């Protein structure tokens, strides 16, 4: 619990003083469970606890406070994180994520920046270590990891599981240690901050973020000589092309994809290629039983 409370206190450091004081009025137990803080101009600060949003502040959030939030989150260096801001988020120390929205300023039809920020959310990053403990052994043959696809609907915990598998493989826990290269397009797996992964992805992991998965995968393949190549959320044919090339080079593949079950792989054109190319040997399906998650492992080829 102490670690969760520390994570919360680290996340609220990006808040302007008045809002930070309000955020710290939660009890330690609540701080340990808080998932998100939400700020909306003209409305009081709220906190998301166990999926429910609760009003926390007294005074309304002022536009200047959201500007200050961005300055604090970027350490007065908006230019250095502008690409992230254009995607609508900002990763801060500890891997916490500040989401932004408001009036967009467009340039050549693309989001250039925000003319006015109207809402922000601070998602507290918490690493769940050990989720892959019951899974990893079944993904290995003679101690060697086999190419694996994690398939589940949004919010089921694909990224959490992927991160923990990467960490364990990179550390050589329950399998042979491997050099892992991770294409982390939106910084959700490793959350690089100042060049350092804020979430533990193991000591033998190289991370490429800020570019498309396909670009990242190709660069990692050329530059980092990976034994395992990982990426979160296969969404485009280019991602699959990069994976095909990587498989040809002998790298073990690790990826996640949106889908409820195996039938989605055969139904959706993009994923059919995955099956036809025989890119993955194992399939991990994430299922829920009440609040519990459990994992179903199937052979793909």
């Amino acid at each position, binding site marked *: 619990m102490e670690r969760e409370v520390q994570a919360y206190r680290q996340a609220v450091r990006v808040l302007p003083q008045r809002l930070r004081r309000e955020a710290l009025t939660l009890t330690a137990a609540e701080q340990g469970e808080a998932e998100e803080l939400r700020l909306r101009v003209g409305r009081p600060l709220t906190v998301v606890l166990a999926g429910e949003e609760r009003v926390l502040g007294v005074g309304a959030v002022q536009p200047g406070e959201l500007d*200050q939030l961005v*300055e*604090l989150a970027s350490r007065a260096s908006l*230019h250095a994180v502008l690409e992230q801001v254009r995607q609508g988020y900002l990763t801060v120390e500890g891997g916490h994520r500040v989401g932004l929205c408001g009036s967009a300023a467009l340039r050549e039809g693309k989001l250039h920046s925000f003319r006015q920020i109207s809402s922000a959310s601070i998602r507290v990053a918490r690493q769940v270590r050990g989720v892959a403990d019951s899974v990893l052994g079944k993904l290995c043959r003679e101690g060697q990891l086999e190419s694996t696809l994690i398939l589940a609907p949004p919010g089921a915990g694909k990224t959490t599981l992927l991160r923990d598998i990467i960490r364990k493989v990179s550390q050589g826990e329950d399998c042979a240690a491997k050099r892992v290269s991770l294409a982390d397009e939106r910084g959700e797996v490793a959350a690089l901050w100042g060049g350092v992964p804020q979430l533990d992805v193991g000591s033998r992991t190289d991370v490429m973020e800020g570019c498309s998965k396909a670009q990242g995968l190709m660069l990692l393949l050329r530059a980092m000589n990976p034994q395992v190549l990982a990426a979160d959320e296969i969404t485009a044919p280019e991602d699959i092309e990069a994976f095909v090339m990587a498989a040809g080079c002998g790298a073990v593949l690790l990826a996640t994809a949106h889908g409820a079950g195996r039938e989605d792989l055969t139904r959706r054109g993009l994923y059919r290629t995955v099956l036809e190319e025989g890119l993955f040997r194992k399939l991990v399906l994430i299922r829920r039983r009440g609040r519990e998650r459990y994992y179903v492992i199937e052979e793909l080829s």
Partner: protein
Amino acid sequence: MFRLMGAALILGGAAWFGFQASRGLGRRVEAVSEMAEGLLLLEQELELEAPALEVLLTRLIPRSRGPAQAMFRGCLEALDRLEEERFAQVWRRFAEGQVALGREGQECLIPLGESLGRCSCGEQRQAVKRCRVRLEEVLRRAEEDQRRFGRVYQALGLSGGAFLVILLL
């Protein structure tokens, strides 16, 4: 004997004032020149990539001199207290503290705080360049002042002292 000593003191004192005034002009030239150099370094760093201000200022401190170095160092330290004071205010405070630059020099610097870290890299580079160009104009005027008035102040000090000595003797 005492008269002679008094005369020497008056002459020396007046000359000292003259030379100090002349040196003041020289110090201003030096300070503006060092600040313009610092801004040129900042511009070049922004040309290469888009580092965070923390990285940028850390790189610039050992390479800059005088008021530029002091300003970069002060701003770097203030990055840890952004919840108390916005960066633009920090920059303004340090710019206003650069007395050696003169009012004109300070006025060139102050607006830069509104751009640094807040715009795209290209826009910041443009803002730094505009500031540097204005500062170089201030430098040219300061050099001209030094050339024109430096000797005048020295001569005025010496001749004023001599005049006082004659008057009092």
